[in-house]
């Protein structure tokens, strides 16, 4: 009975989400239709309409892992294209939407998607405070680089620190369908404060489900709830900015026909601390986090895994010449803080999952060259130890990923307007 009710509930929520999805797509299509046919009129209308976009293509080679592709060859699967539009309906209401096409090989589902499609209500304003409420599909505004993880020129590197910005969870972590709130307050003597809250869920595609669980899963994965919050503080006259972010997210898996797996429940809770320093030539940033990953069912009705993972990265960027910026980053990630060398993982899997699936550490060097103010070439090299942030997440592929140490390099040319 309970199960039937839950199925019904899930079904309804799926329909609701689908209906939201189609209305979002419909709205954005209308928005872009409007944008294209009315550019000239709108420009005269006090520039209420803004259109921007980006296009980026690169080459990437990960040898020793299936991070990009199974055959580990040089790949062109590094494409990111986006177009966005913002239309000011009235003094307090604005429509905004962005559509993107992404191809990152195994990293995330390839294809076009509505990145965000929202109504922005400017609910309160003064010369020291601002409250905005966003309804629709919003982006994750909580982590240091989460808002622009797919915007090539607005992120520090081509591949972001996988400990926090794990590409395998990209479609879930990138945003949600629901409501988000942003309150900016500027207090004399103290500095600038930002408070962000969001509640919403994401649609999990079949490809995303296979990335998280396994290619053998045939059921439906649902994102049931997702609460996120963050606070940022930039002290007055300081080049530093400090932040805290938290998230609580629940998922269910309903087994499909001829499924190799059973029903499952997944809970993901995460706390992040971050800091950013922006000087004239030097920039330092870092994020540290702890996340609880609770996984029940799936293999057997009695299976339960409750791990605390930990990770951090420290990063520096230096403006070497007017058009050249260099980057260095070091990152560590442990899937289970009580099993940092992964020996427990290897033991519990009877040797089928090697211990190096318990961690992933990465050292990165990179350089970006600005040919013009909106054309950039970015290059980077990664030296990686461990394979804990490869996909599929739940059932790792130990056959392909048979090396503890692997390397990756990438080059991407990006243009934006």
């Amino acid at each position, binding site marked *: 009975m309970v199960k039937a009710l839950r199925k019904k509930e899930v079904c309804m929520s799926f329909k609701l989400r689908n209906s939201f999805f189609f209305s979002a797509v419909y709205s954005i299509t209308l928005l872009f239709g409007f944008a294209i046919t009315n550019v000239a009129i709108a420009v005269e209308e*006090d*520039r209420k309409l*803004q259109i*921007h976009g*980006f296009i980026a293509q690169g080459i990437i080679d990960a040898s020793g892992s299936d991070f990009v592709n199974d055959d580990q060859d040089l790949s062109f699967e590094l494409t990111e294209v*986006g177009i*966005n539009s*913002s239309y*000011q309906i009235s*003094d307090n209401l*604005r429509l*905004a*939407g*962005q559509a993107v096409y992404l191809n990152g090989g195994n990293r995330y589902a390839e294809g076009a998607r509505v990145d*965000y499609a*929202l109504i*922005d209500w*400017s609910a309160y*304003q*003064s*010369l*020291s405070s*601002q409250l*905005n409420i*966003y309804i629709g599909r*919003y*982006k994750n*505004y909580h982590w240091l680089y989460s*808002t*622009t993880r797919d*915007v090539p*020129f*607005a992120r520090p590197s081509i591949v972001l620190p996988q400990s926090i910005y794990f590409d395998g969870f990209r479609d879930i972590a990138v945003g949600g369908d629901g409501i988000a709130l*942003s309150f*900016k307050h*500027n207090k*004399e003597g103290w500095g*600038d404060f930002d408070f962000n809250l969001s509640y919403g869920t994401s649609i999990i595609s079949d490809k995303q489900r296979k990335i998280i669980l396994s290619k053998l899963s045939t059921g439906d994965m649902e994102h049931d709830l997702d609460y996120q919050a963050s606070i940022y503080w930039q002290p*007055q*006259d300081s080049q530093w900015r400090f932040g805290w972010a938290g998230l609580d997210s629940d998922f269910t898996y309903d087994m499909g026909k001829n499924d190799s797996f059973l029903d499952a429940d997944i809970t993901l809770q995460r706390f992040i601390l971050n800091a950013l320093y*922006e*000087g*004239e030539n030097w920039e330092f940033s870092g994020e540290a986090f702890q996340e609880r990953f609770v996984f029940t069912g799936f293999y057997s009705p009695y299976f339960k895994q409750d791990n605390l993972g930990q990770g951090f990265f420290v990063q520096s960027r230096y*403006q070497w010449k007017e058009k050249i910026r260099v980057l260095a980053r070091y990152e560590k990630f442990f899937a289970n803080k009580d099993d940092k060398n992964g020996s427990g993982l290897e033991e519990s899997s009877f040797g089928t999952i090697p211990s190096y699936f318990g961690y992933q550490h990465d050292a990165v060097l990179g350089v970006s060259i600005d040919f013009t*103010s909106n054309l950039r070439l970015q290059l980077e090299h990664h030296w990686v130890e461990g394979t804990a942030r490869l996909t599929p997440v739940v059932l790792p592929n130990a056959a392909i990923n048979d090396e503890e140490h692997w390397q990756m390099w990438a080059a991407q040319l990006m243009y934006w307007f």
Partner: protein
Amino acid sequence: MTPVALKIDVYKDVVINKFIILAVFLLLYSSATNAAEVQAVTHTSVEQLSLSKLELRRIFSKRVTKWPNGQPIVVFVLKSKHPLHQRFSKEVLKIFPYQLDRIWNKMTYSGVGTAPIVVPDYETLISEVKSTPGAIGYGEGITQEGGLHVIQIKE
């Protein structure tokens, strides 16, 4: 007149001449510096006649998007590399131009807000601020009679 008195007189003249030259030089130098002083300017509909550097920073970084009377603030800027934009950012807003670019890009490409309007040259900037109600921009050597409000910038 004794030769000594004559010598003193000549010496006096030299000192006075040098002083005049110095005074003229200082005057010219100070007026040149004043002319180059970077200013914040608004459309004449904007009621605020003075703003602190912090308030200006909030306005240009789009943390505040309306004037206290509810009128939307329309921000006009030059390209990031323009010397006047660089000076206004660093000297008045106390923020590096690349930081402003990052804030605006984050808004533009994540849907949370809109970036300022970037104009190609100084003349366009001034004419846009003059003709757009609620507008703010920056300039140099502008007098109050120029059809704009020159904002008194407080520390």
